[in-house]
């Protein structure tokens, strides 16, 4: 593949990320200097004025580099990606979170890995050497590790980090995989990568660091765990 002709569409779903979206746009431009890319902000009607900030960023960086494609209200992550995909003009698509837990400085390593290996998907993993997590207490780490071992045993997914959402896809591959996924939330991320693995797509991993900035908000109550187990069973039976 001719590296010069590649264009990367970076889809960033946002909800109340007025400050973070500006920071993330700055960092993306900083780390992707010689790369042809566009940022597609899919904002779900944020009441905090996120869209106004995006318009200011558009004046600064250009409306061809930053696309604002909002929706009326919170409609979920999966549909946000599908919505963003419709407006993507690149042949590659990157999905990442807007809250700076995913740092744009890893974007070059995703791109490099894909060019080196020709992979259809490059997924960021927090759980290998060179990667890591900051901001998790012991309980959170234990739950994460337990969940991962269970998922590896039951699903044989072929990737080390199933719930991660910092990924680079060939556009055609993302379109194919996303059309067959129906789950919500982080189970959706798991379903995407497991379905891709089952379909035989070439998947590579790069280490990433993840700084959890939402301190003290343990999103892992009993109901989250039940949802996770239900998700595992669903994936075992349907993939």
């Amino acid at each position, binding site marked *: 593949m001719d590296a010069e002709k590649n264009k990367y569409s970076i889809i960033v779903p946002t909800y109340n990320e007025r400050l973070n979206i*500006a920071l993330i746009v700055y960092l993306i431009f900083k780390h992707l200097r010689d790369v042809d890319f566009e940022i597609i902000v899919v904002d779900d009607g944020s009441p905090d004025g996120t869209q106004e900030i995006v318009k200011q960023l558009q004046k600064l960086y250009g409306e061809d580099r930053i696309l604002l494609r909002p929706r009326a209200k919170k409609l979920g992550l999966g549909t946000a990606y599908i919505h963003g995909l419709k407006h993507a003009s690149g042949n590659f698509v990157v999905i990442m979170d807007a809250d700076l837990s995913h740092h744009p400085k890893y974007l070059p390593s995703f791109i490099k890995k894909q060019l080196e290996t020709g992979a259809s998907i490059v997924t960021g993993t927090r759980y290998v050497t060179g990667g890591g997590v*900051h901001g998790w207490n012991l309980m959170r780490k234990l739950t994460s*590790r337990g969940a991962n071992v269970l998922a590896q045993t039951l699903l044989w997914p072929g990737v080390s980090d199933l719930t991660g959402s910092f990924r680079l896809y060939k556009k055609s591959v993302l379109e194919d995989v996303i059309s067959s996924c129906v789950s919500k939330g982080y189970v959706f991320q798991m379903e995407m990568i497991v379905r891709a693995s089952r379909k035989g797509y070439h998947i590579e991993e790069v280490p990433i660091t993840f700084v959890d900035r939402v301190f003290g908000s343990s999103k892992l109550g009993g109901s989250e765990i039940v949802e996770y187990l239900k998700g595992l069973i669903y994936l075992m039976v349907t993939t």
Partner: protein
Amino acid sequence: MKHVLKLFSLLVVISALWIGLLQASIIPQSHTWLLPIYFIVSLGCYGLLMVGVGLMRFPTCPQEALLLQQDIAEAKDFLKQKGVDVGSD
């Protein structure tokens, strides 16, 4: 083939081997009857071991939080200069 069917086939193969062992009596029957229990217990221990080892070796990156703060400061400076509103969120 759906993954659950793959796991099921594996279970069927293992069960067939076990029944074969029971009938062939290479190992004394009393031992053979206990094999499934040994298997399940070993699987459980292996799982716990993987969780424990993984927890001990869990990669952390405390320096990343600091680097992130620096990046945020740098971004705010630049954007403020260029007229983007980066006031408190």
